[in-house]
């Protein structure tokens, strides 16, 4: 990498300023506010507040509903990540083959990434809605009692599918790049060594993709935990009951709907710690597990 040396510190800081400013205004300030808020208890009208120390955190962590949401989030995130990763890997392997129209196929697969979460949710709504959705109606016509607005498990399935679908494109791009980074002679050597396509995939391709896969796993977990608010909000609003209420959705409900700002802030801080933890794991691990 090219290194440039500056005399003095004025110019470097000036050049860094825009980035630092944006980070400060849109991250450090709100994050600091959240941390500050998490130690306060405020009335619903915002007229008075008192310092309560760690009480908000204790309340949150001992709240059965919150724990339920945490467990649900874990299930939801792992399902979304597993589904999005495996689907993307399958599609990338197919797209990596020399097939007619591979270019068009790749472009089409990348498109969903450009679709906003709410719009993606509406798309899925038109497919799975029990009375106006294509598949929803078909299922009911076949005698399957399908209504994700009443059945919590079905609701969970729908938000998992919609969230995973959004993420497949992103994973696909990385997997495809990873696959194309595997030198062809290595695969040919494996073929000559007697490995069939399936064996080649699991003993050569997959291990060589594992750094990519691990990176994507963390990104997907973070995505499922924090970026799926829009999908859930547009499809189920966390319902029916609390069956699709994830932690991030609960932050919203408690803070915006129930106006329990202290608790909401404490939950945000817990999520923040979680995401920082995931990122640390990612960097530690990825740096160590590179093969070349």
């Amino acid at each position, binding site marked *: 990498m090219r290194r440039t040396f500056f005399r003095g510190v004025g110019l470097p800081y000036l050049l860094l300023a825009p980035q630092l400013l944006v980070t400060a205004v849109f991250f450090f300030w709100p994050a600091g506010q959240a941390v500050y808020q998490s130690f306060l208890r405020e009335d619903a009208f915002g007229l008075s507040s008192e310092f309560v120390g760690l009480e908000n955190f204790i309340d949150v962590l001992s709240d059965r509903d919150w724990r339920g949401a945490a467990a649900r989030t874990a299930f939801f995130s792992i399902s979304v990540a597993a589904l999005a990763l495996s689907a993307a890997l399958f599609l990338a392997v197919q797209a990596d083959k020399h097939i007619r129209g591979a270019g068009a196929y790749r472009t089409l697969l990348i498109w969903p990434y450009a679709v906003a979460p709410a719009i993606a949710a509406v798309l899925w709504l038109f497919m799975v809605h029990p009375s106006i959705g294509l598949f929803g109606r078909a299922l009911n016509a076949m005698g399957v009692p399908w209504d994700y607005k009443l059945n919590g498990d079905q609701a969970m399935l729908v938000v998992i599918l919609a969230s995973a679908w959004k993420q497949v494109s992103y994973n696909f791009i990385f997997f495809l790049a990873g696959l194309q980074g595997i030198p062809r*002679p290595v695969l*040919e050597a*494996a*073929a000559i060594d007697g*490995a069939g396509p399936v064996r080649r995939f699991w003993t050569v391709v997959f291990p060589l993709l594992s750094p990519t896969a691990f990176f994507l796993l963390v990104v997907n977990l973070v995505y499922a935990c924090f970026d799926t608010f829009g999908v859930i909000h547009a499809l189920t609003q966390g319902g029916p009951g609390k069956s699709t209420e994830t932690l991030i959705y609960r932050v919203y409900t408690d803070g915006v709907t129930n106006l329990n700002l202290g608790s909401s802030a404490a939950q945000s801080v817990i999520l923040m710690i979680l995401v920082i933890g995931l990122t640390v794991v990612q960097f530690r691990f990825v740096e160590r597990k590179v093969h070349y």
Partner: protein
Amino acid sequence: MATLTLTGVRKSFGTNPVLHGVDLDVRDGEMIVVVGASGCGKSTLLRIVAGLETATAGRVMIGDQDVTALEPADRDVAMVFQNYALYPHMSVFQNMAYGLKIRGLPKPEIIRRVDEAAALLDIGTLLERKPRQLSGGQRQRVAMGRAIVREPKLFLFDEPLSNLDAKLRVQMRAEIRRLQKRLGVTSLFVTHDQVEAMTLGDRLVVMHAGHAAQIATPMEVWERPADTYVAGFIGSPSMNFLAATLEQGGAAARLGNDLVLPFADGPRTGKAGQKLTLGIRPEHLRPQAGGLRVMIELVEPLGAESLLHGRLPDGAEMTVKLAGAVHPDGELEVMPMAEALHVFDGETGKRIEPLDQSTTR
């Protein structure tokens, strides 16, 4: 161990033909070097034998078995790639054991074979390392080891030395030859390097534009090249070519400057005045008054000998190799040694043999 027979092997990529029917018989235990400039189809030929490409037409036989339609895995061949193609995520041991494990060999046998090959290649201390922790030469040995442990019917080498530095290349070249002789495995070695070709091969296949221009022993190729392409390709510096016409009932050739060179090895058939191309290697020219006048443009002293690059009066390039440090400036008159003259057809470029010898090449 086995023979290898190629019959009329053709290959086109789309509408672009790269091999125009190659026939080759490789004897058991023989080392065949396929040599040619880049794009001549030599790698494609090797990949067809390996099964990595499918021939458009023709047949590939290994031993008595027609393998044309078989997958690489079912051909029992081993290949050493130019960039080694080691499995980056496996240790040296795992790299070498991979093919054996797939074939379901018992573990003790795998360990025995890997240890044996590692000892042979002097990489016994590297077995636990990953490929990225190895130098180029060591990787090359591991790639060789991976081929050896398989005990295949056929070794295929795809320019395995071209990524090594000059010194290591010479060393590995000798080592490959020694190993191949010792193991006695039939081998096909592809290279663009004529020195590798000359030193390694029992026989050479000189490829040119999708054809096998000549298949013969290295010395035969050097002494009696089948056409002007082979003549120019093998030998360094390249052979000089002179336009000439047939004279004296086929017993001599007349050059552009009216110099008449009699053939030492006998007359050629053909009409008087037929166009010829005469080939003469730079080392077969001697300074002599009344010969070809060469305007010297550049002298390259190599120590034991000197290379003189220059031009004839008609503008044709000429290279002369003289012993010692002779550096004549300006002009030099040189005479080809009559017995070292190569005669080619001026139109087709094919070698024309003297009448009294067999006409086969």
